[in-house]
């Protein structure tokens, strides 16, 4: 099969859908001839024109509100938020309107919109352009939250997100844009709420999201040399969360390490850990659950500091060993 980068897979998923469905359009800052801050929409305005590749003023709240309004009245907008950090400005529309309208209206109306947004550190963009704020939106009932880790996953999950009748926050990790994997040419959908076991193992379960999936895989390869067998579960979507797969894995291994890039304090890892503690897997836990997340500080600029602010492969290795009393 041909290989595609994560970035190309995002673009391809959108393009395939837009060719089929006139209701789908894209709104965002600098997504027109510029091609978007990361080049995801490059070439799209040429194909779909400025009406459907709608370049907006720098008005995150306005764009988000317009997306909600158009979604409520029959369109299926995709909104590109240039950096996921900027969600703070659009959050009222996403949290107070998009997430709640259907419930507030007693089941009337729907808001089929996708907020696509690059997140994560590692580019040296420092504190206001490097955050991972997925736990905020995962907290809000009415939103769905997706964090793909591979090119294959991103294409299938974006298709599912576009098909979904609910607002979906779709996190694309900046450092993953250039990674590639085999991606089928045709359209396909990966259901939201279905975790993927990225590696099977028996001693410890690592639940890792986004870029941490790759770091966990690296750690697992190292640990294998020492005879430690690690299972890696990539939830792929935080909301809905595939609790069953995680519970099954932890029941099997008896040990859990949760890894995400977002700040550990109040991060989604706490949700996964608590979910396990409340589940039937609790009785199979044979070591305290270990969480790895970003430090409680803004992302620093200096590359060494930046690296140290989020979990790295040796941290994961150590965490696994600690869980195994090794």
């Amino acid at each position, binding site marked *: 099969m041909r290989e595609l980068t994560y970035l190309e897979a995002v673009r391809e998923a959108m393009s395939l859908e837009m060719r089929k469905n006139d209701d789908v*359009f894209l709104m965002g800052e600098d997504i027109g001839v510029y091609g978007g801050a990361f080049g995801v929409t490059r070439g799209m305005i040429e194909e779909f024109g400025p*009406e*459907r590749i709608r370049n*907006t*003023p720098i*008005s995150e*709240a*306005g*764009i*988000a*509100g*317009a*997306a*909600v*309004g*158009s*979604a*409520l*009245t*029959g*369109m299926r*907008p995709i909104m590109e938020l240039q950096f996921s950090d900027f969600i703070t400005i659009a959050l*009222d*529309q996403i949290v*107070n*309107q998009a997430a709640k*309208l*259907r*419930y*507030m*209206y*007693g*089941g*009337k*109306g*729907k*808001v*089929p919109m996708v907020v696509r947004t690059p997140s994560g550190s590692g580019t040296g963009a420092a504190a206001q352009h490097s955050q991972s704020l997925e736990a905020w939106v995962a907290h809000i*009932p*009415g939103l*769905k939250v997706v964090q793909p880790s591979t090119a294959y996953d991103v294409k299938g999950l974006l298709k599912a997100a576009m098909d979904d*009748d*609910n607002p979906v926050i779709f996190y694309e990790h900046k450092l993953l844009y250039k990674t590639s994997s085999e991606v089928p040419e045709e359209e396909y959908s990966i259901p939201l709420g279905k975790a993927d076991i990225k590696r099977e193992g028996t001693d410890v379960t690592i639940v890792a999201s986004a870029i941490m999936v790759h770091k966990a895989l690296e750690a697992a390869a190292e640990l294998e040399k020492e005879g430690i067998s690690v299972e890696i579960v990539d939830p792929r979507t935080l909301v809905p969360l595939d609790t069953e797969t995680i519970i099954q894995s932890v029941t099997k291994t008896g040990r859990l390490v949760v890894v995400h890039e977002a700040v550990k304090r109040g991060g989604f890892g706490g949700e996964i850990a608590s979910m396990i503690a409340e589940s039937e897997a609790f009785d199979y836990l044979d070591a305290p659950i270990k969480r790895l997340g970003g430090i409680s500080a803004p992302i620093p600029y200096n590359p060494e500091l930046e690296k140290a602010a989020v979990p790295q492969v040796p941290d994961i290795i150590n965490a696994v060993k600690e869980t195994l009393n090794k």
Partner: protein
Amino acid sequence: MEQTKSLKLVPEISDEKLKDLYKQMWLIRYFDEQVDQFFAKGMIHGTTHLAVGQEATAVGACALLSDEDKITSTHRGHGHSIAKGGRVDKMMAELFGRTTGYCKGKGGSMHIADLDKGNLGAMGIVGGGIPLAVGSALTAHMKKLEYVTVCFFGDGASNEGSFHEAVNMASIWDLPVVFFCENNQYGMSGNVKEMTNIENIAERAAAYGIPGVVIDGNNIIEVINATYEATERARRGEGPTLIEAKTYRWKGHSKSDAKKYRTREEEKDWRENRDPIKKFKEELIEAGIVTEEEAEKIKQEAKQDLDDAVQFAQDSPMPTLDDLLTDVYA
């Protein structure tokens, strides 16, 4: 039609329609008066924002809208809902938290929506509905649909960033939307002048390159005329208009409002001399469209509708706990 002329209406409106508008105003008044009383008795909970005294803006702005046309509403939205064709029984049922309510008892006073009638819903967030109206207009624009979207908001919302972002976007894209500001002159705790340093909010239109007009919001004729002009412009693809209708809410901002920011005398003046319903009734009588008796009859009909609505609400079933998790996701 002669009456039209004597009423100084620009668009042509039938007598029946005018009588219906008169009835709508009474429905709004009775509805909010009744809600006020029920709240005071603790029969309905939460909070509420009443539009008593502001009947002309809602009814006037929606007078000529079809069911395809959209509105976005505000926390003070009962009037908009009634004016856009909403049913008072379903509204009252909603306030009573019943399953027959517009939102099955899950939305309450601040979130009444009736998508079938083009009411995209009331918003509890000040200014929250303004970009949403732009989105609605964007749909009309992209799908080449005929409808316009009238976006209600208050004087306070015009200080929200969302207002500026939305008006700007609608302007640059020439979207079919009418920004309708109901300036009732008071925020929750004070006069609009304390928060805005210009005489008229409509002046802000100039900053975004669209027309801005100021009208008497307690004069329904003026409201109808101005809205008609703005919607026609929008439908022609010439873009949005900002209308500022000056009006006055008789009640406090919400239930817990002692109205320390204004005088009893001022209130009395607006009640007695600038009552929009009274004014419309006088004009209808003067134009020979209704007699005093007919007007009284229409008022009683409205009262009866409202009593029926209360009965309907009280007879309606409560939701069960099973409904708690439904409709979170589509």
